[in-house]
Structures are given as C-alpha cells and as structure tokens.
C-alpha cells in the first residue's frame, strides 16, 4: 500500500492540535453533574477547522502522547494499559469521531451553524460507540449500565462544547482562509 503523505503544514496543525487536546484535558469547568474539560472541545474545533484527515491525525497524536506516558487521559491517566482498560474505547472513538465530524463539514467555504452543529453531533455519536462497547466488555457491565455511567453524565457538557466549538469555527474559518497561507 502506498504510504500516506502529510504535508508539513498538516503535520504541524495535527501536532499542535494534539498538544492542545492534551492540555485541554487539564482545564476543568465546573458544571453539574460532571465537570467538563476542554479536551473534546479541541477535537471539535480541529474537526470544524481542519477537516477529517488532519483532525483524526491530531487525535492520533493525542492518544500517542498518552501512550508514551504523558498523563493526558481523563483523570490524569496515561499509558498503554488505558487503551485496553475500561475507558480505552473512547480514545479510539476520539480518532474515529474527529474523522467523521471533519468529513461531514463542507470542504470549502464558510460552514453554516446548523451544518456545523449536526456534523459535530454526529462525530460525538461516533466517539461513544466504541467507548461504550469497550466499557461493556472490559468492565463487564451491561449495556444499560454502561450507557448510564459512560454517556448520560457527559451529554450536557457535550452540548455546551458543540455550541462553543460551532461559534469558534464560524468565526475563525474565514479568518483562517484570509490570513494563513
């Protein structure tokens, strides 16, 4: 198979948004019932601004950062063990979700708010599918229990983040095309 080629710009964007995703995991905004972090916010913004390929790559970088030991996974965890642990499915979900959300964005021009919200929401669903499946299998929970602990508490935070990321995408996309080469 032919090696996938990334341009230097794509590499730089993916690397920095990967680092941003990791740093975002440290910013906790207190909202009931579970505090939300800025981590997936970076995923949403990457998907909105950079397209599916680069957004997915940025999440690959984020996951690998955690794998080599930077404590950037939820709750300050790190390491390969987490990939195989109960919450590991979400990490795969981040990569797939970023790709899906980015693919659903229009490839050129300024995206509309409705389109952006729908694309990011669809991406969120893609994040949860492998996440919940692995939670079921590894933690040996039933599907209903896994949904109760693994999806439900985060939905409000996801909504807030999708709304914020949409505002950011609409604001920055024109500026990006105008001012960055």
């Amino acid at each position: 198979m032919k090696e996938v080629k990334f341009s230097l710009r794509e590499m730089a964007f993916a690397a920095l948004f990967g680092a941003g995703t990791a740093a975002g995991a440290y910013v906790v905004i207190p909202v009931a019932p579970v505090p939300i972090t800025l981590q997936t916010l970076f995923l949403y913004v990457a998907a909105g601004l950079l397209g599916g390929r680069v957004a997915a790559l940025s999440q690959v970088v984020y996951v690998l950062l955690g794998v080599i030991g930077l404590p950037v996974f939820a709750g300050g965890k790190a390491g390969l063990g987490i990939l195989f642990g109960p919450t590991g499915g979400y990490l795969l979900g981040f990569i797939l979700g970023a790709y899906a959300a980015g693919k659903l964005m229009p490839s050129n021009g300024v995206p509309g708010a409705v389109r952006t919200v729908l694309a990011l929401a669809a991406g969120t669903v893609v994040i949860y599918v492998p996440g919940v499946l692995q939670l079921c299998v590894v933690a040996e929970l039933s599907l209903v229990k896994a949904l109760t602990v693994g999806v439900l508490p985060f939905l409000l935070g996801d909504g807030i983040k999708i709304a914020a990321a949409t505002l950011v995408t609409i604001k920055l996309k024109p500026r990006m095309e105008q001012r960055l080469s």
Partner: protein
Amino acid sequence: MSFLLGQYVEADSVVHRLDPRVKIVSTVMLSLLILGASAPHCLASALLLGLVMHLTRIPFRAYLKAFRPVIPFFALLFLLHLLFTPGTPLPPFGAWAITVTKEGLFMGGLVVFRFGLLVFAASLLTYTTLPSDLVFGLERLLRPLKALGVPSHDVAVMVFLALRFFPVFLRELDRMREAQAARGRVVRGGSLGLKIRAARDLLVPLAWSTLRKADTLAAAMEARGYGNGPRTYMRTFSLSFRDYAALFLLLLLAAWRLLCGIQA
C-alpha cells in the same frame, strides 16, 4: 517539569537501561495478559510487576502517586459490581435495604485489582524511560505499519512536537483564563448561555494562536529542510542480553496463561 514531561524518574537501574522497544512491547503484552485474567493469574502478574518495580530503585510511594487520580473511578467501578452482581446475599446488609452479594464483592475486588495492575504497568514504562527514547521506540515499533501506509517517522515527529508544545499550551491556557478574569468574566455559576459564551471567549484566541503557531512551525521546518535526506537519531539502541531475558520472562507468563486457557 518531569511530571509534565512523561513523569520520568531519574535512577540508575537495569530497568532504566532496557531498550525502549522492549519496554513498550512488554507493557502492551502485560496489559493484554492482565485483561480478563482470573485471580491466580492476576496474582502472578502482580508478583512480576512487584519484582520489576523493586528493580527500578524508584521508591514505592512514587508508584502510589500514579494511583491518586484514578481512585474515584476505582470506587465507582467497585460499587457498580458490588451492588449489581446477582448471587448469594451477604447477611449484614439485608437490613439496610441494599443487597450486597458474595459474587459482587469478589467481582468488584477483582476488576479493581486488575485495573490497578494496569496503572502500575503503565507508570512503570513512563517512570523509567526518557520521552525522547520513547519516541525512538515508538518510531521503530510503528515501522512495520509502513506496509499499511502509516508514515511512522512523521507520526513519531508529530508526537515529539506535541510533547514540546504541551507545556506551552498549559501556560497559554492559564494566561487566557487570567486575561478573562481580569476583564470581569465569571465562569463559575451563571446561566447556560453565559457558560457557552465564556467557553467561546476562551477558545477563540486559543484556537487562533494554535493555528498561527502551527503555520509558523511549518514554515520554520520547511526553511530548515525537514524531509530532505535520510533521518538519523542522536541515541540509538541495540538489543542486549537483558532485553532478551526480559522478553523471555514475559513469554513464560504468557505461555502459562495460554496453557491454562486450553485446559479450562
């Protein structure tokens, strides 16, 4: 700083000197072995982990520190199994209108024990390996994926760049929060709409500075001729006797596990 950059703990030990590739492979293998292991296999893995942790000459409380952030998750997982596993009820709890079963107690304990071992195994890797050596190991291990079209070196470089910029981001996030606070923006409390606007006001400058930084970085790398000519490393490794010995030990454990699996 060492905490942020992969929590490397400086010490002179056999484990520190192992080839990073061997350490990454061992961690993956051990994680897979621990996954779904029965109680005796868990104990065997725990003994092996304890032995290796002793060999690292890193004080045990350093490992315990890795535990602190995951304790709430452990507690939740334990309670879920304790309260929702069907089986023989334990007598003292019947009076409190909750059922705690013998099976639930055992399952909860085992799941948490397994997960704890995973945390130990992961911290073992990062405590004893320099981040730059991990990138080297990662690149070499990803190399076979080249057949599938994965640009292993580019991926390793991106991870290294992200590693370099991670602390920069943390500082920047802090600065922007302070800038917001100085302008009277309150994030705690307030309506939903206010929260969304607070997140946006934090994120627009942050995302923009990320995009600009990436743009500059790409230009700087291009100017320095990145991607032209063959790649080299400052430090390289070759497999020695102790690397093979470590792999052999792990294979023994895996073989034992497989044999038991066939009998069962």
